[in-house]
């Protein structure tokens, strides 16, 4: 790992020597008999920008829940890099190993300022006693400034997050992921409810993040997916239906069938 953040995190060192950063193998989850995830296999490469699409109930959100530790699968494996077994970790532990998640509905800390939101999300010692004495270092202040630049909210430094527009909240939330210096970003429906302009800016933002980070985007909006994705995975009934470029996927007869019906 490039950033030395002390003994607290070293127990989960990310090993991406085999190129892939995320391995999901043979995952199964059922809720009251309904199979939300059905023998799912998915591999994400380091630095990749991947879009996941699929009709409602395809298991996209459940898959995110498994990766972030919110849902435990009935069977299967989920590894982060070569060595970190995600199924053995709790939600905060997973967050601290370097997986950041952006929720479908923008959830920022509404009564805090934009900068404070980033401060709280920042990577570092998250223990109670440390928090009581914590002061922002100059590097941390610089990181906040830099991140605000990236997400285009520099002029809203002191603004209360609750007063931001819907699109701005989405960007702020992405910023909150970035200050955690994650290796893998999970982004759930980033452009839902956005205007066209906001959508374009979001696409630009996500493209600029790929390479430095691995990004997984779950999205319904096909136009948006086409504008950002190199590789698309189609989920259907908890399983991978097709994988490839947007054009390949769109011309896949099985995908057409699922999306358009018979």
């Amino acid at each position: 790992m490039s950033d030395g953040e002390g003994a607290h995190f070293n127990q989960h060192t990310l090993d991406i020597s085999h190129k892939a950063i995320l391995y999901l193998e043979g995952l199964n989850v059922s809720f009251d008999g309904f199979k939300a995830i059905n023998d799912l296999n998915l591999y994400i490469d380091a630095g990749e920008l991947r879009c996941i699409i699929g009709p409602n109930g395809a298991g996209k959100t459940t898959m995110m829940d498994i990766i972030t530790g919110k849902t435990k699968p009935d069977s299967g494996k989920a590894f982060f890099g070569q060595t970190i077994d995600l199924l053995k970790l709790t939600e905060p532990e997973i967050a601290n190993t370097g997986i950041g998640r952006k929720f479908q509905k923008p959830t920022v800390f509404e009564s805090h300022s934009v900068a404070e939101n980033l401060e709280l999300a920042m990577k570092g010692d998250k223990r109670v006693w440390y928090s009581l004495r914590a002061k922002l270092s100059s590097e941390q202040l610089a990181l906040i400034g830099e991140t605000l630049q990236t997400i285009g909210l520099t002029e809203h430094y002191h603004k209360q997050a609750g007063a931001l527009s819907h699109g701005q909240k989405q960007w702020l939330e992405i910023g909150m992921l970035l200050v955690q210096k994650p290796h893998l970003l999970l982004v759930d429906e980033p452009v839902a409810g956005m205007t066209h302009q906001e959508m374009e800016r979001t696409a630009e933002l996500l493209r600029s993040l790929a390479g430095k980070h691995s990004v997984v985007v779950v999205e319904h909006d096909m136009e948006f997916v086409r504008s950002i994705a190199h590789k698309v995975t189609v989920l259907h009934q908890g399983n991978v239906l097709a994988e490839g470029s947007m054009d390949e996927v769109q011309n896949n007869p099985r995908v057409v069938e699922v999306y358009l019906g018979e």
Partner: protein
Amino acid sequence: MFISQILKNDRGGQIMLAVLAMILIAVPILNLMVAETSSMHVPTYLVTLMGKYLTYALLAVAVDLVWGYLGILSLGHGAFFALGGYAMGMYLMRQIGDRGVYGNPELPDFMVFLNWNELPWFWQGFDMFWFAMLMVLFVPGLLAFVFGWLAFRSRVTGVYLSIITQAMTYALLLAFFRNEMGFGGNNGLTDFKDILGFSLQADSTRVSLFVLSGLTLAVGYLLCRAVINSKLGRITVAIRDVESRTRFVGYKVENYKVWIFTFSAMLAGIAGALYVPQVGIINPGEFSPLNSIEIVIWVAMGGRATLYGAVLGAILVNYAKTLFTGLMPESWLFLLGALFVVVTLYLPQGIAGLWSQLKTKFGRKREVAA
């Protein structure tokens, strides 16, 4: 200075502490130095009454910290207050010595009455003031820690948590009513004579306790404010607003909750310990679930998540209570209920929010007129 740093953005707190400082200086002078015949004289019973209000105010600050800033509606803080009170009461009981009705130098009267021959193990050490003060912090703190650790780790939140805090204080009420518990049963602990060798009847002792209550309130207030100003405080508010998000950002939410809850319980315990020598009695009634609900009403009326609002609410409501239970004893509970309804409907931010509410209202009117 350190204090001005803490109060930098806290206008209400500055005003509240300034008024408190004036009262703490003026009241002792008006009680001890002004002749009793003078109309300026503050009688001792009034000093003690105000001292009682100040301990309530500290209790309200403790509740506001967990309710206003952490979002945990505790309906059991009366229990921590009472436990602190009992710890102080046990010290005061041991101070009576052989001046009790039965003249037993070791055993408090109620134990002699129950035909007990020796002091139970949990009464050992309470003849030492420092030990009793340690217990004032330790007993409520330990209960809050264990309770919080179990409840928050199981992710019990919202109404369910409020209900089990009520159950906790109710269980303690029933337990302390029992004579076998060894805390004086129904009658509780009373007939105190002196504290650290000073007679509790003396004006000077009463004034000292009053001043001490005020100073403790100020210190408690500043401590809470310092916590809220720190990053810890921002995390606390984040947990209140979106708990799941805070967890995903990487904070162990239950640790934060346990820490704040325990700290708050210790403050409540200190308030109880200052309360008991001033009112001269502690009995199981203090564990009554109704007491804990009343504390929440003080905070709601004063204004949640302001801290100084809690102080204001506690003092105003209790002053009204003293006034009305004197004038029309039957009507007090109805009045309290009515006040609560009015505040909930028209003053969601309490009395402390009245100012900003008026400002936006008239500010808007002026804009319209212009």
